[in-house]
C-alpha cells in the first residue's frame, strides 16, 4: 500500500533556516546542511526546501547551495523559491533536486507548469498554492511569499494546475502557518476532492492528531510540517507511529 508521507519543510532565508507565523515574524532555527544530515539519519520520507527570500529579492535559486545540500540527501528533495523558467528547473534538477515547487511564477505565467511537465515529466512539478480565507468565505491565493493577493480561488487554481500537468499540489494555509493549531481541513478537503493528483497539506501542524485529521478528514496524500518539528519535541517518527496506531499506512 502507498504510504502517507510525513515531510519536514525547511525554510531558508539569510543564510539559515527560519520559521515564522503567518508567513511573518521569522525566527532562526539552525543550519540547512545540519538539518538535512539529521533528517537523513532519521530516514524521513522526503524533504521540502524552500528559499523564501529568492522571489522577494529578485534572485534566481541558489544552485550552489542546493548542490551542497543534495549531496547529503538520499531521500527525495523538493526545492522551491525563485523558479521562473524551464532553465531554472533544469539547473535545479541537475544539482540534485528531485522535484521543484513553483509558486509565484505559476501565478504570473501558468503555462510554466506545462512547459516544465512536458520537458521533465509531471512527477517533478509541485504546484505550491498559498491562500487565506477571505470575507466571502472563499480561499484566495497569494503570491510573493504570501504578500500579494491575486483574487484567484485556491480550488479553481488547483484544478487548473492539474490540467496543466502538475504532479502534486503543496497547499498552504497562510493563516494557519506557524500557529500549530491544526490544518485547515475544509479547504484541504475541497482541493483533494477537486483534483486527482496527490495533495500535500501544509500550515498549522502542531500535534500528531492534527496530522491524522489532515489525512482522514482532509484526504491529504502527504503532510508537510515545520514548526511542529522545530519547536516541539514531536519527531516525524512519532507522528508516523501515531498514524500507524490509528490504522493509517506509513513507512516506519
Amino acid at each position, binding site marked *: 500500500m502507498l504510504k502517507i508521507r510525513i515531510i519536514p519543510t525547511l525554510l531558508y532565508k539569510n543564510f539559515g533556516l527560519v520559521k515564522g507565523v503567518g508567513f511573518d515574524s521569522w525566527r532562526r532555527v539552525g543550519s540547512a546542511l545540519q538539518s538535512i544530515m539529521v533528517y537523513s539519519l532519521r530516514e524521513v520520507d522526503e524533504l521540502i526546501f524552500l528559499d523564501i527570500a529568492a522571489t522577494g529579492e529578485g534572485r534566481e535559486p541558489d544552485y550552489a547551495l542546493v548542490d551542497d545540500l*543534495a549531496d547529503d540527501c*538520499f531521500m*527525495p528533495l523538493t526545492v522551491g523559491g525563485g523558479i521562473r523558467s524551464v532553465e531554472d528547473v533544469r539547473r535545479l534538477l541537475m544539482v540534485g533536486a*528531485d522535484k521543484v515547487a513553483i509558486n509565484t511564477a505559476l501565478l504570473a505565467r501558468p503555462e510554466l507548469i506545462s512547459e516544465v511537465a512536458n520537458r521533465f*515529466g*509531471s512527477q517533478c512539478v509541485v504546484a505550491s498554492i498559498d491562500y487565506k480565507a477571505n470575507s466571502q468565505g472563499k480561499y484566495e491565493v497569494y503570491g510573493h511569499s504570501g504578500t500579494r493577493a491575486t483574487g484567484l480561488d485556491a480550488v479553481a487554481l488547483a484544478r487548473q494546475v492539474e490540467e496543466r500537468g502538475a504532479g502534486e499540489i503543496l497547499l498552504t494555509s497562510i493563516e494557519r502557518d506557524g500557529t500549530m493549531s491544526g490544518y485547515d481541513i475544509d479547504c484541504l478537503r475541497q482541493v483533494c476532492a477537486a483534483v486527482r*493528483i496527490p495533495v500535500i497539506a501544509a500550515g498549522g501542524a502542531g500535534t500528531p492528531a492534527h496530522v491524522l485529521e489532515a489525512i482522514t478528514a482532509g484526504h491529504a*496524500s502527504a503532510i508537510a510540517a515545520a514548526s511542529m518539528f522545530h519547536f516541539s519535541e514531536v519527531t516525524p517518527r512519532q507522528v508516523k507511529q501515531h498514524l500507524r496506531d490509528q490504522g493509517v499506512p506509513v513507512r516506519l
Partner: protein
Amino acid sequence: MKEIAIVDYGMCNLDSVARAVEKCGGLPMTTDDPATISEACGIILPGVGAFADAMDNLAQRALIPLLRRQALERGVPFLGICLGMQLMADRGHEGGETAGLGLIPGEVVRLAADSLETRIPHVGWNQVELLHPSPLFDRIADQTDFYFVHSYHFACPPQFAIARTPYCGGFVSVVGHGRCFGTQFHPEKSLGAGQTLLRNFLELC
C-alpha cells in the same frame, strides 16, 4: 573500484545517482561518451521525463546500438531506473508510440486508477513484493518500501517480472532478464534499502 557508466542523455537527476553509486563503493562516470560506456563494468540508465523525448535524446547521441550491444551481446550488467527502466522495454506509449531499447520484452503504458481514491502520479513509498528471487534483492526483506514517482509502468510477461507493487491493481516494479535489471522506484532516493540494492548491483559488475 568498479567503473560504472551513468548514461547522460540530458534527462537529469544524474547527480543523485552518481552520489549514491559513490557511497556504495563504485566509481561513477557520468557520461555520454561511447568509449567510456564501452569500457565500464556496469551501466546505469537513469532518467526522469517523457519516454519519446528520452529515446530521441539517446538516438541523437547514437547510444541506442551501443547500449543494446553492451547489455545483450556483451552481458555487461545494466540497471535502468524509473524512466531508464521503462526505456528497456520494446515500446512506450508516452508522447506517442515509440520504440524502446528492447532489452526486456514488454510495453510501457499509463497507470490506470482502480478507484476514486487512487491518485496518479503514484508518488511516495510503497512496498516491493518479490515474485522471483534475484541477486538484486540480497539482504533486502520482501515487502520493503522504496520511493516511487511515476505515471507509467512496464507491462511485461511474468517471467521477466522480479517484483510487483500493489497500486492501481498491482504493477511490475522490478524487471530482470539475464544481467539486465530495471527498477520503477528510485534506489538512489530510497535511503538504506536503496543503497543495499545498488551495492547488490555493483557486486554483479
